[in-house]
């Protein structure tokens, strides 16, 4: 009787894949829903503006470097290849090569986060943060804008801003002219007529001069002078929410890769962990896919 039972084929409940992989796929589908909601909300906010004629900030307006985003995409793609090769080498029982590939993935992930940190620092230094961007320059906001510009101009004129000669002279002149000027006029002197004319939100009350003014920032774009960016706060909220959550996912992946490297250092990592590497790889590729969409949505389109 016992012999007969032993010969019966073993039946498995559930899907024909390892439990770990099933759990990872279930986790990934929840992540797909999470990022779909985030990206969908971003697209809705971006395209659901009151009018199509009031433009969403361009990458230049918000100091967004497209080349940095493209570079980060290439870095993540390289890291995806490294994970997949780590899985390949582990399958071939080449633990040393697999460990090297995991180390390389960790390094590439760190480069990605480093570039992201640099991009964030650019936003912080230019005051492009949710709730900190000057949009409409009327009332209390206009008063705060003038006060902020005055402090920054004094800083530049004192020689701390490393402004070029032309921008320094324009800054001195603006500081002298500041009393009696409206916030819109100051904004035009800072950003230039060419920029202000692309922002119709300020058209009714911008400086009434017929002359084209070259802005201080056009003379020296490296200076940290704030200017009116319509929808800048909304842009900053979307940018930091999307890239912040993505960066947290990258950080999570890096923690797992570090744990694997520690296991390897303790000689506790081997071909028996092929399933683990495959599952971590699934997670890492998903993080890569999210960035494949975030990059065009935030930087290019």
């Amino acid at each position, binding site marked *: 009787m016992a012999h007969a039972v032993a010969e019966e084929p073993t039946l498995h409940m559930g*899907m024909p*894949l390892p439990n770990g992989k099933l759990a990872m796929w279930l986790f990934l589908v929840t992540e797909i829903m999470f990022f*779909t909601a985030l990206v969908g909300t971003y*697209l809705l906010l971006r395209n659901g503006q009151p009018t199509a004629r009031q433009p969403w900030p361009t990458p230049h307006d918000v100091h967004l470097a497209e080349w940095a985003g493209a570079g980060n995409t*290439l870095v993540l793609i390289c890291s995806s290849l490294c994970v*997949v090769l780590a899985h390949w080498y582990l399958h071939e029982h080449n633990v040393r090569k697999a460990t090297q590939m995991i180390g390389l993935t960790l390094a590439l992930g760190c480069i990605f986060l480093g570039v992201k940190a640099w991009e964030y620092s650019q936003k912080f230094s230019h005051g492009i943060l949710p709730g900190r961007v000057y949009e409409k320059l009327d009332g209390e906001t206009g008063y705060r804008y003038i006060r902020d510009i005055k402090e920054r101009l004094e800083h530049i004129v004192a020689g701390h801003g490393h402004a070029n000669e032309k921008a320094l002279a324009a800054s001195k002149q603006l500081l002298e002219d500041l009393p009696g000027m409206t916030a819109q006029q100051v904004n035009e002197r800072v950003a230039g007529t060419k920029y202000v004319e692309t922002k119709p939100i300020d058209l009714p009350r911008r400086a009434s001069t017929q002359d084209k003014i070259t802005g201080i920032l056009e003379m020296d774009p490296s200076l940290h002078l704030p200017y009116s960016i319509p929808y800048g706060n909304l842009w900053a909220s979307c940018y930091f929410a999307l890239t912040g959550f993505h960066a947290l996912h990258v950080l999570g992946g890096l923690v797992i890769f570090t744990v694997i490297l520690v296991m390897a250092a303790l000689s506790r990592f081997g071909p028996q962990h*092929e399933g683990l590497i495959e599952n971590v790889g699934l997670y890492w590729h998903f993080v890569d896919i999210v960035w494949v969409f975030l990059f*065009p949505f935030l930087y290019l389109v």
Partner: protein
Amino acid sequence: MTESHAAAHAGPRFKDYMRTFYALMFLTVASYVVYVTMGHGLGAAGIILVLAIIKSSLIITIFMHLYFDWKKVYGIIIPVMILCVMSTMIFLVDQVMVWRHVGDTATEQLQAPRH
């Protein structure tokens, strides 16, 4: 473990990974070139999004082995895809409503001289 090995045997070969990698690099550079040459227009946006969809499809099918694992996980993925499409449609409806109700009237209101 045996199951995992069997799945890995049925998976892509080394050169498949490398080809996918080269394709992904090329498509990334291509999307950047499209942006530089065509700018922010609707045509450029369409091309860039199509390239992004191709890139994600390559990662999903080859790097994530979905080409080989599809029969095992389609039960999980298909419902989520349906939900994603539905959410997108809901967002789109909302946008169309915004355009219909606000449209140019708000532009005129905003750009009219204030008294």
